[in-house]
């Protein structure tokens, strides 16, 4: 990490990805897509910067890494700005509860809710001072302050990658100016774009650019088993262990399965967040902690099935990684995006509600070979539809049309 100020002048015409967090240890689909898109565009010769915070934990937003500028692989410049978390969070919780309960919350309270968490004043002022020097500023996901507040400073150069879920916060008035005023919108999937069009009066410049899945050429399931001493067949869940991601519903369904059905299935999980495993499951749930991407790929391949219990997905990267690993997916059909992946690929099972989840897990326990065969079309689905090269082509194409590089000024003629 260099000690130069994060607020130094950026290279003229650079593409900036504004991400709430960046770097090793960060778990988040939007952050991962931003990091990979940044690297991909840099490899294609674009000047690319990542403007981010010093935080790695999206609960505390504590400054965990130093502020400043560093240059990482492929000459991507990373500028880190310190977060402020000096508010009590009382409004965030109080108003947040009202929002989740579906109450009408006025704009003043919506703004209070948004600003009673992390804020990144130096990042905001960096974009205020230098925003026009960038060719484009890409923001994701929509509900973080870094997108909401910073994304409205130079709307004419801002592309929002909202990573929308169908959730109460997506219906807040405060997000309309962000999305409706942006230069363009990048969606990750068609269902997300449909949702965006239902909720907002979006600009005409919108495209489903998607995101790529970098599938390894060779998975090593046995390596994962050996590394973690896992011999029994297992279900796998990777990601944030949070209520909003459906983790507790998965735990409850798994508990019902193992207490009512003869099976030696384990539930293996990796990622961040508290497990809250009930005592009766303590020998059935394995926390692999935070895994590297290769470890995660191997875990995906080693699992009998990958479970996606979240109803709020805008892309569902892990579902695609599981498919790429040749593993079937048991997924919450309440998510339009996951439904889209499963229905198009055929490589998994959809359920609605906990009772169906229990039965789906019972099927996995009873019919592992059928589950293996169910997974077969998944590999092709991912290989054909989620190539980074195609995604980057779409990103470049939209950038060229929405925010073309200005033509160099013609030198005055010296002919007489």
């Amino acid at each position, binding site marked *: 990490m260099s000690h130069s100020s994060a607020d130094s002048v950026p290279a003229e015409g650079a593409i900036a990805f504004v991400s709430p967090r960046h770097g090793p240890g960060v778990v988040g689909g939007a952050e991962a897509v931003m990091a990979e898109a940044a690297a991909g565009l840099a490899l294609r010769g674009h000047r690319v910067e990542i403007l981010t915070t010093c935080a790695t934990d999206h609960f505390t937003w504590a400054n965990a890494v130093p502020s400043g500028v560093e240059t990482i692989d492929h000459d991507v410049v990373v500028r880190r700005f310190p977060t*402020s978390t*000096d508010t009590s969070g009382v409004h965030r919780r109080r108003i947040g509860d009202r929002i989740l309960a579906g109450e009408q919350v*006025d*704009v*003043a309270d919506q*703004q*209070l809710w*948004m*600003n*009673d968490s992390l*804020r990144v*004043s130096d990042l*905001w*002022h960096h974009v*205020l*001072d230098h925003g026009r020097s960038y060719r484009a500023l890409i923001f994701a996901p929509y509900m973080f*302050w870094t997108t*909401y*507040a910073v994304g*409205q400073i130079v*709307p*004419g150069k801002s592309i929002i990658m909202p990573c929308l879920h169908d959730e109460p916060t997506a219906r807040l*008035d*405060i997000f*309309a*100016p*962000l999305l*409706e*005023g942006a230069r363009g919108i990048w969606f990750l999937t068609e269902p997300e774009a449909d949702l965006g069009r239902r909720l907002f009066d979006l*600009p*005409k*410049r*919108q495209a489903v650019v998607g995101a790529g899945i970098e599938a390894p050429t060779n998975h090593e399931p046995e390596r994962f088993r050996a590394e973690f001493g896992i011999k029994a067949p297992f279900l796998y869940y990777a990601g944030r262990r949070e209520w909003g991601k459906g983790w507790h519903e998965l735990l*409850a369904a798994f508990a019902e399965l193992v207490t009512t059905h003869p099976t030696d299935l384990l539930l293996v999980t990796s990622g961040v967040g*508290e*497990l*809250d495993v*009930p005592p009766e499951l303590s020998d059935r749930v394995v926390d692999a902690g935070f895994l590297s991407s290769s470890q995660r790929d191997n875990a995906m391949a080693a699992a009998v099935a990958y479970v996606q219990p979240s109803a709020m997905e805008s892309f569902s990267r892990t579902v695609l990684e599981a498919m790429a690993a040749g593993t079937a997916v048991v997924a919450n059909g309440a998510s339009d995006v996951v439904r889209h992946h*499963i229905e198009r690929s*055929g490589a*998994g*099972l*959809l*359920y*609605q509600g906990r*009772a*169906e989840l*229990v*039965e*789906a897990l*019972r*099927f996995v326990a*009873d*019919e592992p*070979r*059928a*589950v293996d*065969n*169910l997974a077969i079309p998944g590999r092709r689905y991912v290989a054909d539809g989620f190539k980074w090269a195609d995604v980057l082509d779409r990103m470049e194409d*939209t950038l060229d049309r929405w925010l073309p590089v200005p033509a160099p000024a013609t030198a005055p003629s010296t002919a007489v």
Partner: protein
Amino acid sequence: MTTLMVTPYPPYRDGIGAYAVQEVKRMRAKGDDVEVLSPLPSAAHQHLTLGGLRGILALVKRAGRYRSIIVQFSPEMFFGGCHGPAERVAVWGGIEALSYRTNLEIRLHEIEFGPLRRNPAERLAAARALRAAARVTVHTRPEITNLSQALGLDPSTIELVEHGQNFTMATTMSRAEARTELGLDQDQHVFLAIGFLQEHKGFDRAIEAFGRAGLGRQASLHVVGSVRVNHPDLTAHARRLDQLCRATPEAVLHDKYVSDEEFDRWIVAADTVVLPYREIWSSSVMERAKLYQRPIVAADVGGMGDQAPAGTLFFDDDESLVQAIKERAQTTLSRLADRVPAPGANAGPAEAESGSSWEVSVELPEREGVEAQIRARARARALDERSARRDSSAQAVDPLLSIGRLERPRAVSTRPGVSQIKRLIRRVINWEVDPIAAQLESLQRATVEAVADLEARVAGNERNNPDTPRPPER
């Protein structure tokens, strides 16, 4: 040393905040070291709850750290939380004290003359505070006159600062592009009234006058804005505007919260910006209309006459507003008459991106078939569970049964020390939470029993009816 700007600030949507950020940007571009302090947490570097004596005293305490302080003054920011005239006087005293700690500029965007008239002590305190400041700045000459007369100040000590001196364009669209983006007719004369929907803005006057002007389809009026807070008076006013627009052909209310860019897009799209204010000191909307050289029809109130560009049509009453609207609409008629249509003139941008019992073939499993079985089994299991409770085949109680028993989260954590803290918190709150939990359980039990009982009765009726479909046999 640093300059501190005290102001409402983005991302809060606020007229003074939007004004201030442009000044901050200009100063930073010049190389000035500027920090911002806002009354609410925002993109500012610091925040401090103002609006009363405690807030101003805290600000006075910090003031010594700064070479200068620019206060973007509004009564709401400094007096919004005051509990009476005495506290207001004390706040003015605090503002005066700021001047003794640093170089203070008070940029007056608005001042409440009512309390100053009613309370001589406040009048005296305000006059002392403004006299003590290094600079007092306003946007229009009438404000200088009013202020100096109200407080007995020497007018020459109050400086004029052009309202729009720091304003920059938020859109580069042409009128045609803006209209295409907003879905507006290219040929109509577009009147625009834009801003928060508040009675003093007088948008209702504009709608009524537009209706009376009887321009037919050659013109439209667009009222764009949102209610700032859910106060009954404000929402009632917004409803009234909506009703007026519905009753007025070609008048449309766009009740929406718009970005800075969309705000400017509307201005660019407009042929005439209407400022029908009942009261105002000076207008940021007028400055934005000036920025894009859009003609203005404005009420002759406050400092508008001083702020307005040449060519602005002023009105004193509703009748003269009708006349001004008719006069402005004529310009489009003339333009249309003169215009030779250009090929594709109406075209917008071209792009619009727009060993089991499962019935399954192990070798060729069919997803939908398996899912159908999963659904059927989940349903059947719920039926079984209910049957175990009572002999019934009804289903309405399913969701209630699936809720499960109320269980409080375990007070454990993998993080060191957190489990002990959780257990301690639990012990502290048990006396309050336990009765609530017990009540919830009773309620849940009673609800399940009541619905199940109802189900049984319905099922009984169904059994007696030969046409009722039967649940599948397992």
